[in-house]
């Protein structure tokens, strides 16, 4: 199972619909300061169920919706879709037979989020459920945010234990 692309629209600085391809196992994202690279990481954690605005560098959950620039007006909703290549059937349970699995999250300024699995509406629980046991999730060790790598070894002994237990 690998990530084949991410589709962003109205999310932070990605106001226009944008698809970022991940065609291989070694993909690099580059660009100047402030261009939107870390916003892609935030998008991945958000669609996997991140529910804390502070963890998305915002004050409220509507801070993920594009709130304007010097030439554009704010928009009313944000949507992110992760498309996985599941041809190895690694994503478990009832979805093992799907060769492509797409999870999507949409939010409008009023606040309620809608989740979709292969285009069909579902609950947040279904999304977090699908990743159970794969090591993925909104705060997983598999997604290292900017400036946080050293925290893994600075944790207190009890926290380090919890961290290992979650990863198992």
């Amino acid at each position: 199972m690998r990530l084949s692309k991410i589709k962003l629209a109205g999310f932070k600085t990605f106001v226009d619909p944008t698809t970022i391809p991940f065609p291989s196992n070694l993909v690099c994202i580059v660009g100047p300061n402030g261009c939107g690279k870390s916003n892609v990481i935030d998008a991945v954690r958000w669609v996997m169920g991140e529910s804390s605005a502070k963890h998305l560098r915002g004050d409220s959950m509507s801070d993920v919706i594009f709130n304007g620039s010097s030439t554009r007006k704010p928009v009313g909703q944000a949507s992110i879709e992760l498309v996985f290549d599941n041809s190895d059937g690694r994503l478990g349970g009832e979805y093992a037979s799907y060769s492509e699995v797409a999870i999507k999250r949409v939010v409008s300024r009023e606040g309620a989020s809608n989740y979709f699995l292969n285009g069909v509406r579902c609950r947040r629980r279904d999304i977090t459920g699908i990743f159970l046991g794969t090591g993925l999730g909104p705060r997983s060790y598999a997604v290292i945010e900017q400036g946080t790598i050293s925290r893994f070894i600075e944790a207190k002994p009890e926290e380090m234990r919890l961290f290992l237990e979650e990863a198992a």
Partner: protein
Amino acid sequence: TRSRFRDTFDKVNRGFQNMFPRLFGGGKASLELTGDDLLDTGITVMAHPPGKRNSTIHLLSGGEKALTAVALVFAIFHLNPAPFCMLDEVDAPLDDANVGRFCALVREMSEKTQFIFITHNKITMELSQQLNGITMKEPGVSRLVAVDLDEAAAMAASA
């Protein structure tokens, strides 16, 4: 489930002891249990870069800490390999020699795990098979551009 914890601890510890010298070009590291009861003991990290005897993790330098943490994260991938790994400028505090060893390890692990990484470092850019450039030709609006290595290096050079 003491035996489950013991099993997890041993696996990650073995992975950590293996990854650390490969990233540092020597030295040794390990995880230690702080208590006797497996049900509630904590875990501490011991790390000795090559030639050093330092006692605590806090005395390590900025680059040594980042590299030790990468060794631990990669050890956890050994225990439970997630489908992808996303890294946001983890190479920023590293000198070129450590970046080189980091890239070599990522290249090897990419046979089993997909790596998606953000970097300003030209050595790390060369590791990639696909480069996605993000620009803001229109101020405040992100757009994807296809780039090659020279363009990527230039992008990191211009705002």
